[in-house]
């Protein structure tokens, strides 16, 4: 009897002790991201940024399993099912693309898993269909476009705006127009995956616009910027930050010089956290981090910070810790809105060549503590 009590007490002490150490409960993270095909660059940066934060945390109880979704929604769903049902992960993360995210998140949260988005942030999950278990550490898809709309209002009277013909493209132009008060010369939607923009550039030249806003992610943006530079058209081009992020800038080359973009972060940010992030990333991977790497880095920081305080097995407590966003983000101000999307500052950046490398230079702040248009519909 006595023996029994002693043992129980010892066990209790032990468990108290470990919970005092805070990260004794193992935390397993499932990362689904794009590591093959044309979009692999974004997934690689996402993975690398995320793993950097995990490594820096020194938390040995966190394990990350990573799998390639090949940018196919069905495969992403299959991997998510496997990670949830077989690998028993606690948190999912890493998906780059909105359409893959829309495939995975509703099912994952229905099974009680947390999802922390490192990039994709479709409007559909930010408003009435927001979810307690779904966090976005990047932005809401519209944010960067809204910022460019705000910026363009000040300097441009007549804008030519262009995006691919798919939901993120429509959200983009809608977001831009939400804040742009000038005249829209033309609103053009191009085929997804289109690689030749000669016809659109000719329209731009003829439109009489004094500014151009384009949202063309990945290879589409590279193709557009090169062709635009080659065309000799001299109208200023602007776009959301990821159009000129570090993963695409080397491929665009000097054609990107001078392009204005909006971003919640740029590599030249003058704060300690940002400098540390950039130098750690460069030391680890021998290249400049892109915005995707930053977003994943912060997502990992968030998970690490929550894991340091409570066990993921207690979902409510863990969620509350995530929501507090107790991290030092390289982007500066960072907190969560009621719909669990960021409230953050958004800046204007410009592509410059610095030490022989193309990069983004911060020009000015466009928005302070900017949330999104959908939070009001979210009842959490």
């Amino acid at each position, binding site marked *: 009897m006595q023996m029994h009590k002693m043992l129980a007490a010892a066990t209790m002490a032990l468990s108290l002790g470990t919970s005092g150490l805070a990260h004794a409960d193992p935390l397993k993270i499932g990362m689904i991201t794009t590591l093959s095909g044309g979009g692999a660059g974004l997934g690689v940066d996402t993975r690398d940024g995320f793993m950097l934060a995990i490594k820096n945390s020194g938390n040995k109880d966190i394990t990350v399993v990573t799998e390639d979704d090949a940018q196919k929604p069905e495969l992403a769903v299959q991997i998510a*099912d*496997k990670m949830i049902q*077989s690998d028993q992960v606690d948190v999912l993360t890493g998906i780059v693309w909105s*359409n893959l995210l*829309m495939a995975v998140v509703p099912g994952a949260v229905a099974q009680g898993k947390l999802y922390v988005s490192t990039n994709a942030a479709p409007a559909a999950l930010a408003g009435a269909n927001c979810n307690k278990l779904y966090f976005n550490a990047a932005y809401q898809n519209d944010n960067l476009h809204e910022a460019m709309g705000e910026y363009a209002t000040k300097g441009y009277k007549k804008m030519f705006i262009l995006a691919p013909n798919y939901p993120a493209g429509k959200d983009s132009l809608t977001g831009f127009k939400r804040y742009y008060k000038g005249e829209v010369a033309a609103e053009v939607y191009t*085929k997804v995956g289109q690689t030749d923009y000669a016809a659109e550039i000719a329209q731009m030249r003829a439109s009489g616009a004094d500014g151009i806003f384009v949202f063309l992610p990945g290879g589409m943006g590279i193709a557009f910027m090169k062709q635009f530079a080659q065309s000799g058209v001299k109208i200023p081009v602007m776009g959301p930050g990821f159009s000129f992020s570090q993963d695409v800038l080397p491929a665009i080359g000097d054609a990107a010089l001078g392009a204005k973009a909006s971003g919640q972060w740029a590599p030249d940010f003058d704060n300690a956290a940002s400098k540390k992030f950039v130098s750690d990333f460069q030391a680890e991977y021998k290249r400049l981090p892109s915005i995707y790497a930053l977003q994943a880095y912060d997502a990992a920081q968030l998970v690490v910070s929550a894991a340091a305080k409570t066990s993921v097995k207690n979902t409510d407590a863990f969620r509350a810790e995530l929501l507090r966003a107790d991290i030092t983000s390289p982007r500066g101000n960072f907190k969560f809105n009621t719909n669990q999307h960021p409230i953050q500052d958004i800046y204007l950046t410009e592509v410059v060549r610095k030490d022989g490398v193309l990069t983004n230079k911060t020009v000015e702040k466009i928005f302070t503590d900017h949330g999104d248009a959908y939070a009001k519909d979210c009842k959490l």
Partner: protein
Amino acid sequence: MTRENLVNILLAVALLAAPLAANALGQAFYVTLATRIAILALAALGLNLALGLGGLVSFGHAAFFGIGGYAAGILAAHGFSGEPILFGLPGTVQMPVIWLVAVFTAAVVALLIGAISLRTSGVYFIMITLAFAQMVYYFAVSWPAYGGEDGLSVLVRNQFPGLNTMVPLNFFLICYVILLVAIALFALIRASRFGAALQAARQNEIRVATIGIGPFRIRLTAFVLSATITALAGALYADLNRFVSPSMLSWHMSGELIVLVILGGVGRLFGPVAGAALYVAFEFALGSLTEYWQFVLGLILLGTVLFVRGGLLGLFAGKARHG
């Protein structure tokens, strides 16, 4: 019993036993994986009817797979929200109704696509079916009402009378039974007068016409039947993933369906089952091994075409028997 029948029975039993065992061991994921195999096998079985029996190399069957998927997604979305679709027609979350709609829609579309495509043959047929599927693909990507490129979520799996479909094993059993029924149907058609005419038209079109059987009508019928089976699989796939998107309509999907058929054995009754099982197993096993898993997959597929003629069933059950 022929060796092929034995292999077939083994495959059927294994596909049932594996998820039952996994379920008993609490490994729900393997039930999901088996469901995926059953559904892809059903889709490939549909293609096998056109391709294996009729020699119609459709490079556009993703169109029908996706149409089935969207039928499920759209009906479920409206069934869930209670808003009518068109002209006051309501949506539904009942699987049997969804299946009927999927099959009917695919039949209509296949009739149109087939009527034009079957005027051509050989490479032209391959290319024109591809082009039609691309047309449907781009339509789905740029059509905003149902999510476009982002796709459409089926928030709660659709219902089947008397069964809780959210239980993975139940949903697997639904798919498995449908697969077996489709296999039986395939066997019947293959042995029937229609099947005889279809297979004869594949081997010698002029001969078939010369005895007074118009190959066009036979092929069009086969094409439509084939599309409906693939569409039914698409509807189930949407329910499995609780999601449907244009990627179900992409040309990669069409290619994958062809891969499944060839991998298993063209025209073989259980070829699609063997092909789907192998493909899903590869995807699953290689995906967690290396970032370059598609490279390995490519090598395996190439090796199969070059050295294992007749697919898996050709390898294990010998040459196809013809009566």
